[in-house]
């Protein structure tokens, strides 16, 4: 898929932002938001991101009170009309709820389209009618189960022995969860900017060896898991799963958490006594999903700091 098609899609998702630009940092954040919501696939291979639209689907949302499914993936302006028409025709009491998701990104708002009904049978009827597949189980659970673990990720990376990391490289601190330090040995995530191409390189360092990463998110959690630190918190009562904003989850786990509610995480601030920290707070995350995400990240979830 070409960039123009993607931009067309992004413009459709967030039509209220007149100056939308997929270049630069805000554009990257916009893509990241769309990826978390399952609208596109921002898959990196060999240092290059390829962004493609995701296949349209209806993602079951967990919850006991009511059956709900969020529309994710590629959609055109006509998709909503088709679904609304199908709901009217099928006559199974399926409501289409359209709301706006405020995103702290390059997109001002994204339309959240959720089908609600008393049973998933009715939603399945609409899904069949419009030809959009409905996930068998809650999408957050399926995605979290399918995601690789931090240990498998670590076992799969390729180490380059004796690579000269530039002196100006910064290293991720498991204490502050920021890039701020020089190398002091052990397994650490490093980053530096390549002079001629202006590209930021992320690599894990272990003594003299280096492993270049496509996903700095996994790199952070490899380091956190190895150091025994934790960047995640969970409150089963409030069903909020929080993760430090400077150590956000790898993209498929982020999507698993987002598709518990169909919403982007809220930004929450917590005062730890030493200073304020920012957290990504994912809502409506049931205990099983929280457990498996913690397990995949190789970390223990502590109590919420806010």
């Amino acid at each position, binding site marked *: *898929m070409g960039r*123009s*098609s993607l*931009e*067309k899609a992004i*413009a*459709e998702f967030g*039509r209220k*932002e*007149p*100056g*939308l630009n997929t270049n630069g940092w805000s554009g990257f954040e916009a893509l990241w938001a769309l990826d978390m919501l*399952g609208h*596109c*696939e921002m*898959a*990196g*291979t060999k240092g*290059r991101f*390829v962004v*493609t*639209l*995701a*296949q349209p*689907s*209806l*993602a079951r949302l*967990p919850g*006991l*009170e*009511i059956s709900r499914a*969020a529309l994710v*993936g590629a959609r*055109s302006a006509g998709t909503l009309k088709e679904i609304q028409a199908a709901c009217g025709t099928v006559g199974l009491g399926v409501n289409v709820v359209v709301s706006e998701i405020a995103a702290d990104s390059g997109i001002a708002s994204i339309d959240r389209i959720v089908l609600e009904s*008393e*049973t998933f*049978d009715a939603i399945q009827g609409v899904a069949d009618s419009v030809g959009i*597949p409905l*996930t068998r*189980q809650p999408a957050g*659970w*399926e*995605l979290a189960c*399918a*995601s*690789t673990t931090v240990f498998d*990720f670590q076992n799969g990376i390729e180490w380059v022995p004796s690579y000269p990391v530039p002196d100006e490289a910064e290293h991720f601190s498991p204490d502050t969860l920021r890039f701020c330090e020089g190398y002091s040995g052990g397994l650490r995530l490093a980053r530096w*900017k390549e*002079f*001629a*191409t*202006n590209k930021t390189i992320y690599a894990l360092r272990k003594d003299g060896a280096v492993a270049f990463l496509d*996903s700095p*998110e*996994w790199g952070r959690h490899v380091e956190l898991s190895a150091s025994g630190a934790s960047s995640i918190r969970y409150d089963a009562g409030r069903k909020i799963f929080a993760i430090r904003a400077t150590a956000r989850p790898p*993209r*498929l786990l982020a999507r698993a958490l987002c*598709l518990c509610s169909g919403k982007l995480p809220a930004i929450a601030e917590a005062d730890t006594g030493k200073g304020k920290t920012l957290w990504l707070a994912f809502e409506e995350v*049931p205990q*099983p999903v929280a457990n498996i995400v913690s397990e995949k990240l190789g970390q223990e979830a502590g109590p919420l700091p806010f």
Partner: protein
Amino acid sequence: MNYAEWNNEIAKRFFAPECDGRRVFLSITKDLIEELGGAKGVQDFIAAVKQGPGETMRANSGLCARLLETTKRWRQRGAPDFPPYIATLALFVLGASYDGDEEAESHSYHKRLRELLGEPESYNPIYKFYDCISVWDDLETWSSHDKEGAFGVFHVEFSGPWMFVGIPISQTLLTEKERASLGEVFSTAGLDPAIQYSDAHIAAAIVEHGRGHLLKRTIRRLSGEAGTSEGLREVLLERLHEELEQWQTTDFSQMEDGLPGQFVKDRPTRVLVSLQYLTVSRTVQTKLFFDGRGLDVDSYFTLKSSRTGKVFSVEVERRSWSHPFYLDGNVAQANELDWLAGDNLNGTGAGLKFIFAGGNVRIFESGTDGVAHLIERGRIPAHGPFWLAVSSQATDVIEWGRTSCKGWQEARVDAGLPGGWRLFKADQADSTSGIENKHPSLCLPSFARIVLAGGLKLGKASRYLSSSPPQLVAQTPPGDFSLTCNGVPLSIGPSPVSVPAELLQEKNVVELRDTQNPDKTRKCSFYLVKAETLPWKTGLEFGFSARNGTGAGNGGARISGALVLDWESPGLPMRDSLDGESVVLLGRKPGQIANGNGVIDWSPVWIVSKGRNRRVFFCGNTVETSEPEKSQVGDRKAVRKWQEVIYYGRRSIQPPRHRRLSALWSNYITIAKNV
């Protein structure tokens, strides 16, 4: 041939699927008309145009009046097929098309058109000729907007008094044969399509390498010889810039098909210098790279300097700037190459010819386009700051900088530049007259140009999503200019200008007017398209990720959006979501009851909360398969508890809100009553 046949033949010749997204000029010549219509083709063509389309041929009105009426009727019919006015516009161009090396003269255009039509001799235009400007505009709308550039893109680029003759004359500046030979000229001249050269550089290079390929009049115009029109030279230069930008050197798909006779030339690729000036140490670090954004595949090159025999290597990912050049395993400094004499770097593959340009001056601008620090440019910017590396031989450049540039100052460099080179920076070049002949890259634009920047462009024509229109950049030579969009003035500066949302329409006309010479007003249009009107392309390919978040390969789980394919997830342990102590689970049969954390061998249908505000939630698979059964299971105590919760507790439990679930719950109450 009658009018419709001529119209169709000419339209097919210029607007065709293979012109998709490319600029179209109606470069009609007598040769072309004779090629289409035979030896007497010109007379036949003129006779057909004078007669006009069938629907208006009997109308007792002039050629232009009939043309306007035909256009109006065609639009009313929904604009089917090709526009019916192309043959008449072709005749207008033929009036400006001179044989061989004759020079067109705009003042005699009307006289010549009258001659072709057999009208009385006069320098005045034919009746309603000026009104036909709307037909040229319609051709632009049809090609760019209606057909989305799929058959080529026609632009009307003039406004102001000169446009009436300027539009037809500008179609003839390059003949089809000249246009076909431009690739060879560009290649021989070593012009890289990725570089923006100055007008003086383009003109000098084409004059030097275009002889034998281009008409003498084209060479004369570029040279600015006496007797040639300065206005036409500017338009010609603009066309050459555009042809270079659009130049496609190699069609690999056709090469793979083994089609014979394809013109395949190595694309000249400029090796550029990136420069970092370290103010504290007063040193510079330089690297070599090239613009690989035109490459569709990841590539690796081994390149040998034809001067020194040094072997460089460089890697580039498709559609990106290259990585830095390497020499002997280390990043190569740019002074490994000869800055004065230049060099050719010979390698194999990808159809590229690497050139390191030599000269006394190298121009740099602050990093943009994703490249850090200062990057080398082919020309100085029309507005804003730039840096120059100047050899000690070029004292004239230093003198020019001192007298003609704002903020000119030397940046002292103790190490890092080739011997004898100095580094200067300037805030703005005020004038380049006097210096541009000897150093063509030091040349401000010689004509005004409107550039559309950014926005979400749909395809190659000037169509943009209405949610994201382009910004406007006015590239102007020194002088006073005014920029307008839909008639409303906008500011001009080095930065792109946004058009206020309230001014935007479906078709937006931008004009750039030289206040001293309004004849030379430049014009361009862009169209805004609403997202709702866009259909999705059929066969859209969706992306898939692997379990670790990289692109999915062959085998293993594939993830796209919410879908997980080729992967079996375990069932969601729903009861883990519950606080086992505070809920009761109920099954379909009397006696199927357990606490939330109890061990059960049946599927729960209902979850009932304990406490004051009791609610019941459906957790069965489907309503149809969750109907209650009368047959009892378990001991009498369990059956009694099942009845107690459902029947005796019915007044304290809030039932499901939804109709079908509420009905299902009522069925359970009925069964529980009779247990």
